[in-house]
């Protein structure tokens, strides 16, 4: 990941900024240029939308072969959640044991360290999922 690309994605990664199609009200995250349902009708009508960050677990899995950045947290849990805005989000589920995860469980987005460029480089922050307190 190069630094400039990271800059462009900051709002998305930190705050869960998606887009909403003004034609059909569907929400997309990550943002899309056009709505796949409305196609041409959505031109110029995709507006920024801040997501609530809350949702329910649809499915989840335990990952044993880590991405190098996640070595410290292995094994870890990846979950797909359905957010309040009816948009699906895949994320790293933390602060819970695998045995305690249940489908339908309420989770929310929080900001965590995702990794770093190098020990001297910038630190990457972004969303992860945690059980609702």
């Amino acid at each position, binding site marked *: 990941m190069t630094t400039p690309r990271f800059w462009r994605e*900051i709002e998305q990664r930190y705050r869960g900024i998606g887009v909403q199609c003004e034609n059909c009200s569907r929400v997309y995250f990550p943002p899309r240029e056009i709505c796949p349902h409305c196609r041409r009708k959505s031109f110029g009508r995709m507006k920024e939308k*801040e997501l609530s960050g809350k949702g329910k677990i649809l499915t989840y899995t335990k990952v044993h072969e880590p991405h190098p950045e996640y070595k*410290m*947290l292995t094994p870890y849990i990846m979950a797909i959640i359905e957010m309040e805005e009816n948009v699906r989000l895949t994320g790293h589920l933390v*602060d819970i044991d695998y045995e305690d995860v249940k489908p339908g469980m309420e989770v929310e987005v*929080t900001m965590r*360290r995702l990794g770093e460029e190098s020990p001297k480089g910038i630190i990457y922050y972004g969303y992860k999922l945690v059980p609702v307190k």
Partner: protein
Amino acid sequence: MRAKEKVGIKSYAGYVPRYRITPKEIGKVWGKDGETMGRGLRINSKSVPSPDEDVVTISTQAATWALERSKLDGEDIGAIYVGSESHPYAVKPTATIVGASIGATPLMTAADFEFACKAGTAGFQTCMGLVSSGMMKNGMAIGADTSQGAPGDALEYSAAAGGAAYIIGTEDLLAEINYTCSYTTDTPDFWRREGKKYPSHGGRFTGKPAYFKHITECTRNIMKESATTPEDYDYAVFHQPNGKFPVKIAGKLGFEKEQIEPGLLVTRIGNTYSGAVPLGLASTLDQSEPGDRILVTAYGSGAGCDSFDITVTDSIEDIKNDDIPSIQEVISDEEFITYSIYAKYRDKIEGGR
């Protein structure tokens, strides 16, 4: 010091990582009786951040909850000050990342503060000046730390992680800040040189002439300014590097144990440094009723104190059943870890510095 206009707390929230380690577990590794050590410090367990947590993530979680509780938008926040002695970057402000994550950037001012354990309350005072002068409507002050003691050092038994965020304003207040005052001297009781991983301290020197003298002077000063005595307060919050010092200073100043109980978190989560008083005050506000009066004195090595005389308003009732977790709810989610997991987490944290 008293502001010309009414000023106070519009919202607040705190966050503490869920991992815990006991003094007994730490002592085992160093061939020491950690249990006795813990009893001496009156610390039963301390919080440990996960490898993906740091002052930025702790501050962001607290700031997000405080903003949600206030019903304000990120754009309504004119200033963010983050007080900490464990900012992830030596140069690159934590406050900018927190600002972006809550949607407060770019039309805002931001800076990181450092004054050992009272950097968070220094932010309170700065925000009080900005909002009461009318320069902005809302300012956010955060105190957070992920402090480390050198392995085997006495500080390893207490150094913990956590933080709290406050929105300071002049309207729709949950609590009014009637007075604030500070007491500052050049006292080298505890320090960390640039580029060093762990702090150094003057051992026994950190007690009497530092913590006790400064808190006594500052607290007596604010009670003089506000013409109050300990009996006028329902609660008091003092800096809590361990469970012993705040109890001792409270007694010495004439406060009862019951007055400091709601804000005394150190026995369960350890010393959260810049987070300690902001979290203690948050926990006290959680349990307070309209009209309650709270005295707060933060202490930072180096050395200085900030005191606050606070009166809770009727609006405190409005937040009691909101969706934001109380401090007790946050800290009751705990998972105890072994020293080997703790060492793995700590080394990762160091690696990032």
